[in-house]
């Protein structure tokens, strides 16, 4: 499985992808339409033959509509916190739910995750610089 870029949730924001059109339904729910797909060459004929939809279109439920409405530049971390407060979820539940929701929208090219700053490199494990003295409590260690 291909893994994407690791992002810092404290410094990443969600925003609608370029070309995505949003509209409200009669019941107040949000409908997102991605930019049209333009296949090239023989793929165009294949897409016509297989009746591949020209664009992705999804209608969100009330919770999804609420999440999209909160995408005003706040970080993913803050968005998860707000979602947890809104739905009375624990922090882990809110983070998991938001991650699943985001990945589904990203897969359909409806939402982009934008990193405001790169993730800090992982810290090197602390190594003991000086060789440790051997003691009688470690009889299995033998000198070469």
């Amino acid at each position, binding site marked *: 499985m291909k893994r994407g870029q690791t992002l810092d949730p404290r410094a990443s924001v969600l925003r609608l992808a370029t070309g995505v059109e949003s509209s409200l339904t009669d019941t107040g729910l949000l409908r997102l339409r991605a930019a049209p797909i333009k296949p090239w060459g023989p793929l165009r004929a294949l897409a016509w033959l297989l009746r591949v939809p020209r664009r992705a279109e999804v209608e969100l439920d009330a*919770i999804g509509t609420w999440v999209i409405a909160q995408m005003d530049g706040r970080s993913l971390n803050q968005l998860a916190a707000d979602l*947890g407060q809104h*739905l009375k*979820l*624990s*922090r882990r539940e*809110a983070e998991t739910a938001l991650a699943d929701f985001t990945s589904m929208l990203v897969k359909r090219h409806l939402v982009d995750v934008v990193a405001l700053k790169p993730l800090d490199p992982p810290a090197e*494990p602390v190594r003991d610089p000086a060789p440790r003295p051997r*003691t009688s409590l470690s009889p299995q260690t033998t000198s070469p």
Partner: protein
Amino acid sequence: MTRVDVPNLLAWQGCLHDLPPGWEPVGMYGSWRKGQVIIAEDRRPRVAIAWERRAMTPVLERTANTVAKAHRRAVGASQVSPPEPCGPDGVVVRLVGGPTEIAIGVRRVAQAQATIVYRQLSPGPMVEFRRLIMATTAVADDEAATWSIHGLRVDLPPYWRTEGIQVLAGFVRGVWFHYPHGKQRVDSVLILRRYACASHLLAGRDLVTWLTSQAEKQEVTTVHDTTATSAHLTLTGPGRTWWRRLRRRPQVRHLYAWVDSESDRLTVQETTGDGEPLAGLRPRVGSPRCAFLSTQEATGMP
């Protein structure tokens, strides 16, 4: 967002642990007889708790040293400290001389014939670790057990054993089988489901309507009791197999459901099978600790 600062109880496979606030299980393996649970705080692994129920009483110091030596190389420690007592039936050893200091504890709960091994996964205060070891209780095979994990909390009679738990965002489902008198044959099944966002799920409907909408077409609903936040009903349908249908043995599902308005959670309890159906397992209102202590006192009373 609410942070759970009330006593954080983890009751799983007959062992009950009083975890520090913010700690939660992130991995569970094994069964009633033998298994392990991994505890983490946020994204930081904290402790691994393994248990085994055997009649033979182990030598605690030897067990602790064996576990310590098995993990000494991974931790990078050069020495294992001498065993220190931890309560009347436990010992603690420490892996020292490495970049980090890790503690390992062993406790024998004689009443339950259970040996429990605690292993720190990241350095932490010893006072907290010792408190975790000493606060653990366990029940024997033929005793009633408390189960409390991921928001599910029930007190079950003896010989109910879990078959699995599914944890998703906003949804927890646990399945228990009843083995009468510890025998192999299962006579009842209990399924507990706990949903978040109960108000969104119900969408203005009452509990009976919502439960009935999920019943199969051939099932007949009998409502026994219903209030604004709870319901009890029975769904009766044709037997699952042709042999049961030939003998005119219907499939009966007993459903209890209740809504916790404060946390906006909906819990559905479903029992089925030939055994005695369980009554509603809705926990009493009050702190979990008080409920647990009353249960513990009740087991020893005549």
